[in-house]
């Protein structure tokens, strides 16, 4: 009994050294940042990770309307949904590939034009002039408008019979032999591109304009004293100074444009013309229109992998460029 009582005694802390228990104040200091991060982590878990995991699980299931009410009971289909999606000789895969290629072409053109127009506008607005503030506010209008309202307005303007676009191009400028169709057929690609660029370039303008604020004016003054013209200043000072801003801008624009659902959906409805069959609407159709939720999930996972790969390569390349430019 005596021994047992002695064992139960707390260990005697060696005086003047050895392991010390962390004081409560230190624990608080170390733990507090994690505690503060916790709400964000929980929300991230709920909003992104849980649905993502569910989506991945669904992609391995034969999920149609017969199982949607209790999708957990849908039979496993292994890799079938992925096989169907990437079988480019069969109709589903062929349509997905077509949609992917349309989306790549559309994204490259849209991002390129958004960047070009946004940069040109920001450079133009760099110097103070009367009315600059008003013009700057006007430039940002497309970015500030609700997407639905803006795109519906474009739908009216693209109408074949009564639309403003045909009125200007055909009736006033006589650039076309007859009024064109913009919301069906091949031209739908250009209609979509127009709306996308109109909607996207103000963001590029905003970011580039912010980047321009960080370039010291002295550089331009020195260059001007050395005889550099506007074009040389742009090439030698403005664009190199904006490179890091542009890297982020292009990545964000790329991801937004590649995944854009609202613009094509509002413009064309749930059955987009073949020429403007963007992958986001295509996957929506596979999932919610033809009710092949399993195949739609597999397509979403493939898209996610593609975007992750592109982003990874892009970030690797741009960080390597940054390192090499610092080394120089």
């Amino acid at each position, binding site marked *: 009994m005596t021994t047992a009582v002695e064992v139960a005694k707390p260990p005697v802390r060696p005086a003047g050294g050895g392991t010390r228990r962390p004081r409560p104040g230190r624990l608080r200091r170390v733990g507090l940042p994690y505690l503060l991060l916790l709400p964000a982590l929980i929300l991230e878990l709920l909003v992104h990770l*849980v649905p993502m995991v569910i989506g991945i699980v669904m992609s391995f299931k034969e999920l149609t309307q017969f199982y*949607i009410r209790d999708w957990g009971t849908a039979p496993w289909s292994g890799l079938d949904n992925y096989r169907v999606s990437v079988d480019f000789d069969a109709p589903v895969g062929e349509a997905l590939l077509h949609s992917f290629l349309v989306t790549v072409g559309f994204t490259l053109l849209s991002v390129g034009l958004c960047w070009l127009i946004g940069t040109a506008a920001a450079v133009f607005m760099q110097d103070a002039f009367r009315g600059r503030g008003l013009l700057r506010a006007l430039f940002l209008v497309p970015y500030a408008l609700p997407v639905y309202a803006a795109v519906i307005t474009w739908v009216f303007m693209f109408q074949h019979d009564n639309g403003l676009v045909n009125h200007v191009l055909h009736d006033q400028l006589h650039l076309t032999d007859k009024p064109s169709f913009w919301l069906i057929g091949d031209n739908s690609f250009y209609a979509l591109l127009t709306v996308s660029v109109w909607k996207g370039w103000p963001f590029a303008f905003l970011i580039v304009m912010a980047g321009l604020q960080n370039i010291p004016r002295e550089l331009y003054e020195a260059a001007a004293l050395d005889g550099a013209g506007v074009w040389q200043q742009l090439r030698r000072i403005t664009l190199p100074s904006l490179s890091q801003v542009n890297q982020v801008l292009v990545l964000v624009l790329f991801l937004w444009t590649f995944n854009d659902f609202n613009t094509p959906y509002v413009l064309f409805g749930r*059955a987009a*013309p073949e020429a403007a069959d963007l992958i986001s609407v295509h996957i929506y159709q596979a999932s919610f229109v033809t*009710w092949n939720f399993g195949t739609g999930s597999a397509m979403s996972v493939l898209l996610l992998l593609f975007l992750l790969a592109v982003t990874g390569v892009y970030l690797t390349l741009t960080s390597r460029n940054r390192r090499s430019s610092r080394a120089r």
Partner: protein
Amino acid sequence: MRTIRAAATGAVVMSLALAATACGGGSTDGGGSNDSPKTLTYWASNQGASIEVDKKVLQPELDKFEKRTGIKVKLEVVPWSDLLNRILTATTSGQGPDVLNIGNTWSASLQATGALLPWNDANLAKIGGKDRFVASALGSTGAQGQDPAAVPLYSMAYALYYNKQIFADAGIAQPPATWAELVADGKKIQAKGKQVLGAEGANVAENIHHVFVFAEQHGADFFTADGKPDFTSDGVVAAVEQYVGLMAKDKVIPQGNAEYAQNQSVSDFAKGKTAMLLWQSASANLTSQGMSADAYGIAPVPVRSGSPGAGAQVNSMVAGINLAVFKNTDNLDGATEFVKFMTGDEEQKILNTAYSTIPPVAAAQSDAAFNSPANVVLKDTLAKSAAALPQVADESQFETTVGTAVKELFADAAAGRAVTTESVKARLAKAQQQMPAK
């Protein structure tokens, strides 16, 4: 610190609980209950000229129902563009309305989800039995051989609406009974500078309704007897080619209509731009757009030869709206009572008059209120020469894939590209390949 720790613990527990719920895979609730006997939620489809019009029509009836039964009905009018997605979402989550409207062509597809209450004999007996309903309307309530997944609420049929003044100006004495007559009349109408026939070329659902009727007139069907897609048979190809040919070959549908999808063809007709329109129960819509009832006439949709209404001469789909109950409702008795109320003789007369539709309830249909010339045409069509769209589980997918193929063919026609038997067959083959594999 204690407060923060408690909050953090609470947050973690809540997140795990929510995550567990999210992973649960939807409702497994097998049937309804009467846990909430004093309220009902009702999703109505948009039937009137606007959602506000629907609320004005429906709310007095819901108030009447509340006065009689003490059950409050919360109404939400859902636009057609959202309705199917909303129903699917509700099906997945198990958090849907108690009672809802569905397009009658969706009945079999939604029945396959298992989310709708089956109307077996016992349930039908609670609302007066199935003999109360017109047979053709009851034929669009679910797959053959199964209990109906819904009960008919409003019936509609396609008819040919024609502008009397334009016809008189063109010297046409009576509306065309065959497609050949329609094309011939079209030339006279075009000579007077008017458009001939309106269509909604980019509206997937409208496309499918029309090509279904053309296929029936060619003696073909989009599905085999055992429910497999059969979109490329000669009859179906000829039917689609004939319908799109009204624009591509016969030039009676204006090319601009290829991009119509928002009922612009109804507006064109109401404004007197177009001489004819194939539409279902358009009267209320035309009135709301300022066209007086005596400015237009209503005739049966043309057929290939002979006269419509003679057995196999199908000239319309059985169009309409059904009323369904979500299986996991918390007010099963109240929902059944509500269906009985809405399909009662009195409410059927009020509602179908407001929407210029035909009551699918036989006793209400025979009421004098539905004996106007327009309604006689629609009633005759429904009784004698209308056919239900295929009541198969893949019906919804069929509407989308074939409807989209027809939209693309109209786009070809509008662009001046030839629409040939081969191009039609190729589009339909692609549509068939997009159907879910069995």
